């Protein structure tokens, strides 16, 4: 847990952060809006004070109410991982600028996020489906895409009826739409 990182981030990006900086174990998390993303990322990448050169992960998250894109970065200057959460993306039309200008290797990671969530990365030259067939129309990892046995719960919370997978979702009452607090 790097306290100095927190103070530095607060000092530099305080205006653009949309939430408190959280730190847990060896991770530091900052939250931004989609519009500020490129600016902040450029500073984090290019500025020799920060030097976050390794993009470790690019993930999409569907919190149930909104969509987020989560980036993990590594720098030699701090012992923590930096997690940048770009949240506030509306579920109907999630758009976010693409990171391929800074990290061309983010292209496929953004394709995967688009494929699974439907988040449009503006500026990505190749935003097409990567796992699903090209004419697929749904986004599998969204929370309203139910697997047939989504109605079943684990033994801790209910009864698992894997054999009910042929039953259409409307017939099952125990489907719980999951959400998580930002």
């Amino acid at each position, binding site marked *: 847990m790097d306290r100095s990182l927190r103070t530095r981030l607060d000092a530099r990006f305080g205006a653009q952060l949309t939430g408190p900086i959280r730190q*847990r*174990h*060896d*991770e530091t*998390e900052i939250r931004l809006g989609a519009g500020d993303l490129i600016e902040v990322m450029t500073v984090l990448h290019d500025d020799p004070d920060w030097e976050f*050169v*390794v*993009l*470790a*992960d690019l*993930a*999409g*998250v*569907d919190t149930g109410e909104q969509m987020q894109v*989560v980036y*993990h970065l*590594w720098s*030699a200057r701090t*012992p923590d*991982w930096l*997690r940048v959460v770009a949240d506030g993306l509306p579920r109907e039309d999630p758009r976010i600028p693409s990171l391929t200008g*800074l*990290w*061309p*290797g*983010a*292209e*496929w*990671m953004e394709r*995967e996020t688009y494929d*699974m969530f439907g988040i449009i990365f503006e500026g990505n*030259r*190749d*935003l*097409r*489906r*990567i*796992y*699903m*067939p*090209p*004419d*697929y*129309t*749904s986004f*599998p*990892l969204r929370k309203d*895409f*139910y*697997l047939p046995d*989504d109605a079943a719960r*684990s033994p*801790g*919370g209910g009864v698992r009826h894997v054999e009910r997978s042929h039953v*259409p*979702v409307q017939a099952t009452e125990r489907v719980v739409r*999951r*959400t*998580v*607090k930002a």
Partner: protein
Amino acid sequence: MTEQSNHRPHLSSDDPRIMLDGEIGQFENVPPYPPRTEREAEFYTLADGEMFLNMGPQHPSTHGVLRVVLKINGEQVVDLDPVLGYLHRGVEKLCENSDYHHIISQVDPLEYVSSLFMEWAPVMAFEKLLDVQVPRRAEYIRVLTGELLRVSSHALYQGWMALDLGGLAPILYSFIERDEIVEMLAAITGQRMLFNYFRIGGVNGDLNHEFMSRLGDWMSRALKMHETNIALLNENEIFVRRMRGIGKVDKDTALRMAVTGPNLRAAGVPFDVRRAHPYSVYPELEFDIPVRGANGGGDSLDRYLLRLDEVRESIRIIDQCLHNMPDGPVMARLPRLLRPRPGRAWAAVEAPRGLYGTYAISDGTDQPFRMKIHDPSFVNMQLVGMLMKGNLIADTMAVMASIDPVMGGIDK
């Protein structure tokens, strides 16, 4: 449920519903629908003298089911587009519907060649969510088995590399090495391939006598076998000539392509998660990070040689683990039903192919809310398209093999 897509009739020769009776004699554009992105337009328009060659999902040497569409001009590859998804199993979605314990066996088949690493990062992430302290003996066992598997994976890499270049013998020697290690691990885990050994809070069982005796046997000849395997190929002029100078990646490009692992280290960047962001008991162990291609960048030969160097370092680590192994429990005491507090955790390990990370979000129930898996081969595959421009078809295989992809991880 999912809305069914309305099937537009199209003349793609890949579509099994279409019988090409009348329209034979022309090679259709791939894909048949108008290109939707810039890159698609760039790739799928043919200039004069070019043609598409499809190294289809069934192919003797695309490391799994991978389809690579090559745009060739004679023997020279002008552009390359890998098409993924043939092995997509929806692991992340399945993980959202599984218990925390069940995820360990679900996550094994990503990079089935080195499956203990695939378990390691999720287990670490969950331990962070649960604030669990893993006993030291368990950590040492994790490192020991992990490094053994790294040796096995790199030995297999050597064999694949030779096989893709046409040499039929080295892969069998690689499999001898892999077989010994896998038998060792089968003695403690009960499995030869998808080990399902790590648990949240430790490992599934302590080391036993059979494992120790096999390990002792193996350690006594490990370095010598390694030298023999090296001697099989390194001196071979044909082999070296086909790898030298092919697929050169320099430092900056590699970092910008988000490449990690031996591919990054062979490009000159000394980034290894075990030293950059130490986890488990790696801070106590003495080992070096081999780096190649520090000036100018690394080619396929550097990537190959680097993995051989890493095997030596892994053997060193195994030796130290054996000597410093503490006593104690191998599993922390945890309830059967795990319900971590709502929160988020990220954990990354150094898999044989690169940085393998898991981002887990918990919503307080016994199933994770979101589990994102960052697979190194997925990101490394982007290098192939970049490196292949201007090389020959035969080099496609060589470059792809030198990057060491495993389709299970790429397709999740």
